[in-house]
């Protein structure tokens, strides 16, 4: 996807405070996270106090203050997925990566996050990875999926106590 610059993102929206969330959405899509520079530019360009920009970024889950891993696994924690065992999947992923949701593995390859509902409830549990939806997941299938994403030759992190 063509990267837009901050100027391009702010174009047509300058001095319109109500465009803050739209601007941040575009920044998130283009950069994978919200850099401090982008927050300052948004504050100045839209006429929103810097404190307010920071507040909005920290409030909404969609905006991340750090980039995520190369492979970001999104696990659905919705009710339908939960009653079909989604919590076991999250623990499985956290154990395999050795990082908590929201963090990135030291090699930058993996991160996991949980979402409250992906809207495909009939086929849960659902795991989304790089745009693909995997349905009817089990801990075993998930372990194989993660191993498949690992580049050849890298060692599996020892499974840690969940």
């Amino acid at each position, binding site marked *: 996807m063509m990267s837009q610059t901050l100027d391009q993102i702010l174009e047509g929206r300058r001095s319109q*405070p*109500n*465009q*803050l*969330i*739209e601007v*941040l*959405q575009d920044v998130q899509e283009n950069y994978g996270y919200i850099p401090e520079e982008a927050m300052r530019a948004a504050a100045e360009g*839209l006429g*929103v106090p810097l404190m*307010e920009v920071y*507040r*909005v970024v920290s*409030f*909404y*889950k*969609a*905006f991340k203050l750090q980039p995520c891993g190369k492979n970001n696994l999104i696990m659905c*924690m*919705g*009710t*339908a*997925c*939960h*009653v*079909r*065992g989604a919590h*076991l999947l999250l*623990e*499985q992923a956290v*154990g395999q990566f050795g990082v908590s949701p929201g963090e990135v593995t030291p090699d930058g390859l993996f991160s996991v996050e949980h*979402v*409250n*509902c*992906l*809207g*495909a*409830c*009939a*086929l*849960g549990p*659902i795991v989304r990875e790089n745009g693909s*939806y995997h*349905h009817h997941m*089990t*801990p*075993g*299938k998930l*372990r194989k999926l993660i191993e498949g994403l690992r580049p050849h030759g890298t060692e599996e992190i020892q*499974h840690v*106590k*969940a």
Partner: protein
Amino acid sequence: MSRLNSYRELEHLCKRLCEERQNITTTVMACDGPGCQASESRAVIAAIRNELSQQGLDGTVRLRATGCHGFCEQGPIVVIEPGNIFYCHVAPDDAFEIVYQTVAKGEVIERLLYTDPVSGEKARTESEIPFYSRQDQQLLSLNRLVDPCSIEDYIAAGGYSTLARVLDRVAPDEIIREIKASGLRGRGGGGFPTGRKWAECREAPGDEKYVICNADEGDPGAYMDRGVLEGNPHLVLEGMMIGAWAVGARKGYIYVRNEYPLAVTHSRIAVEQMRELGLLGDNILGTSFSFDVDIARGGGAFVCGESTALMASLEGGVGEPRPKDVHTVVDGLYHKPTTLNNVETWANVPAIIQNGSAWFASKGTKGSKGTKILALTGRIKNTGLVEVAMGTPISTVVFDIGGGALNGNPIKAVQIGGPSGGCLPVSKFDLPVDFDVLYEIGSMVGSGGMVVMDEESCMVDVAKYFLAFLQDESCGKCVPCRLGIDRMLEIITDITEGRGTLKQLDLLEELAETVAETALCGLGKTAPNPVLSTLRYFRPEYEAHIKDKKCLAGVCKALITYSIDPEKCNGCGVCIRECVHGAITGEKKQTHVIDDGLCQKCGICQSECKFDAIRVV
């Protein structure tokens, strides 16, 4: 297509589109809704498109990628007219046969038909399938008639003719009278009488008014609004415009949650197409009515489904609710009178105005009219989106439509209404889907999410799940919600980890009641419902966790052990290999054993064992 300047021109366009489509002999409607997408419907559609071209049929055959058909468990779904032939579990490799046999020659492919799990009989059309025949699909059935990205489809099917007639000859007050008489109540969870809301907004002083479509559908386990907005955005827009005309608004917003990028895209495309035709903008269809719509995206916050939080978010700020001592129909978005309604509520409007309030009111019960779309999921055979007349008993939905228990496990409860709703035991399944009845017994219809639970679901765990969800999503402003939910979760966690006391149950109830009475917004006020309803109907499970330190459903990790059934284990070694904690030992062809000290209860062994030999006790 050029701009439409009058009602007449719309009629002509509709007529022309219908004539152009007369040479289409066969229509293939392939579902591309939320469920089917997760099962690779895109690949199926691409394959069919390819085959149609290869076999030279793309001139007389129309392939339409549609929104949700409802039977998500059986997806990907393809329906073929003429004949209304219903194929399920379609794979891309089936495309050749579908085109060669069914499309070209009208022959049915038996193996792609739905098979009744009890009788073994094959069904040719939907009407032969109980999942469908027991429903009353007023809104969902429209999905197959339109490609959501084609305004021509919508107009050819008669779309916008109701709006045109309204703008031409129906006064706003009359619209409001009709909506009031229909008994339509909000479909997003509040169940507030729509007609009354519109009337109050119309009467509020001020020239600048807004209409908003709440597509923030945050209830986990609910995707009805996604099905309607992604599948038929024009229906929602037409409803919004009729409403805007009625209350006197000239600007509207559709606020779509961040997790639904496709709904955002389809809405944007729809709005663009409307602008091209002059159905949005100034002097629509040559009348004095000017109206435009913007699509706004959420930032990933469940609390933004609350109306004041949604408006704060639209204004570019954090989604923190504010006290509603003055209603939003008077003081709403930018402090102007605002009518905010749910996707499904707006979607019901055109049909009510077209067919009349009496038609709508003839369905349902005294207090709850019309139909309701439910997202039926969880531990039952048939999951998907279903639409039933209000007043339908829960048992019909769960057993007749839902097909009953999955894996033969007896069904224990149904959770209705998302995190604001409650759990009902099987003994209450004779109750109808009705706003007031369900509210009286401690649950609610809510947005329509219906999750079925069986003996392997722990009701204490369910309450804990919802509390954790709400704790994560609370905005944190007010004390009862922020601290109250936290402490309720602390108590329930104690209970699920074997540290609970009976005194804590009383405290839990008292705290739950305090939160319900004093919280600032709907999220906090209804947060105690899962706790209160499970305490009311499943108290023995709580007591078993406390007194016996046992989780009978086998869910609460601290209270369960995984063990291997010696009668079923044949010593194949798969679980030993799969166990990453080295907790299983055993010789080949000998019963394997799990060391409880090393076992982390991750569940991998159970999911990999092909002999069903691993049990949770």
